């Protein structure tokens, strides 16, 4: 098979995975996102009422809506999920093409392994340090820092996995495959752990420390008056939990479907070559 075949199959498998993740998001993400937006709006109103009571002029009018909530919660989330499915499908296909035929694994096993590596490095490891957060969790002022830190986690994880694989290959003859893979796993966890402990928590960013003292995260605390009485509650812990579990599951689904569909498509193509008069790799896609 040619690289073109793999890339096209990566796009197809990624698109299918994105569609599945979209359906999942409609059922499991949107209720949590709506609850988070309701919290954000309620808190905004409480803050404004407080400011008006303190003598400030009313701000008047909310944020202007560029894309309506209805579109965001249906079509918008679909474009996002399918788009990211195709994006990771393309990157996945490149990694798969480079490994295909160079390791002693049948295609569908290799596909699932590469998908697992993508899930681990591009999503799961960064999630441990900087978990997915619903609207209202995350300050406008820190978006630049948060994006940079998140990408450092993603790129770091990819580099660490490459290092772990290199270590495993070096030790394989001496320790045997099983033990070499275990050592590689320890190398990955150790390197990722070091990076996580070096990078700051989002609550430790300067802007946040000035506003509310040093904290680990940006999750909104209760709004209090001068005496310390709670005027508006902190962010609902259950909404945060359900949102994060759903986010993690959606990514597992996205990568899992990508790996399974891609592996199936490649094996079907190879089987077709085999039956077509044993003249494989001719010209077909």
């Amino acid at each position, binding site marked *: *098979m*040619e*690289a073109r075949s*793999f*890339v096209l199959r990566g796009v197809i498998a990624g698109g299918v995975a994105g569609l599945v993740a979209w359906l999942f998001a409609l059922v499991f993400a*949107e209720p949590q*996102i709506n609850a988070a937006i309701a919290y954000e709006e309620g808190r905004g109103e409480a803050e404004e009422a407080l400011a008006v009571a303190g003598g400030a002029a009313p701000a008047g009018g909310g944020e202007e809506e*560029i*894309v309506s909530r209805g*579109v*965001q*919660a249906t*079509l*918008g*989330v*679909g*474009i*996002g*999920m399918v*788009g*990211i499915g195709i*994006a*990771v499908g*393309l*990157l996945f296909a*490149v990694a798969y*093409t*480079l490994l*295909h*035929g*160079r390791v*002693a*694994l*049948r295609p569908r096993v290799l596909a699932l392994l590469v998908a697992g590596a993508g899930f681990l490095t591009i*999503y799961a490891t*960064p*999630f441990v340090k900087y*978990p*997915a*957060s*619903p*609207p209202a969790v*995350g*300050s*406008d002022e820190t*978006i*630049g820092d*948060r*994006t940079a*830190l998140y*990408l450092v986690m993603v790129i770091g994880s990819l580099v660490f996995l490459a290092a772990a694989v290199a270590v495993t290959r070096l030790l394989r003859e001496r320790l045997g495959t099983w033990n070499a893979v275990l050592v590689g796993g320890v190398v990955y966890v150790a390197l990722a752990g070091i990076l996580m402990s070096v990078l700051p928590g989002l609550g430790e960013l300067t802007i946040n420390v000035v506003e509310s003292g040093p904290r680990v995260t940006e999750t909104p605390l209760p709004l209090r008056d001068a005496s310390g009485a709670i005027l508006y509650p902190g962010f609902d812990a259950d909404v945060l939990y359900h*949102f994060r579990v*759903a*986010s993690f599951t*959606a*990514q597992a689904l996205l990568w899992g479907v990508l790996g399974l569909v891609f592996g199936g498509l490649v*094996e079907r193509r*190879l089987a077709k070559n*085999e039956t077509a008069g044993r003249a*494989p790799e001719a010209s077909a896609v």
Partner: protein
Amino acid sequence: MDGDVVVRIEENPVTTAGAVARAKATAVPASETLPWLISAVLVGLALYFFIGIDQGAVSVFGDTSYVHELVHDARHFLGFPCH
């Protein structure tokens, strides 16, 4: 019994041994495939950027935040920093 197994392996084109052998035989040489691989990486990264990051921390489409707002929910749900 043994004969039975051999026959089934030959009939089924996707048995483990056969598939591994076939995959090995068809390793893709890097030189022919480089244009495909490079374009796939570029398009993949561009999509990742537009869905995950553009018009948040940085923006290539200028001052509007249409892309950001359209994929807003997916951005949160996929774990990208957003607000």
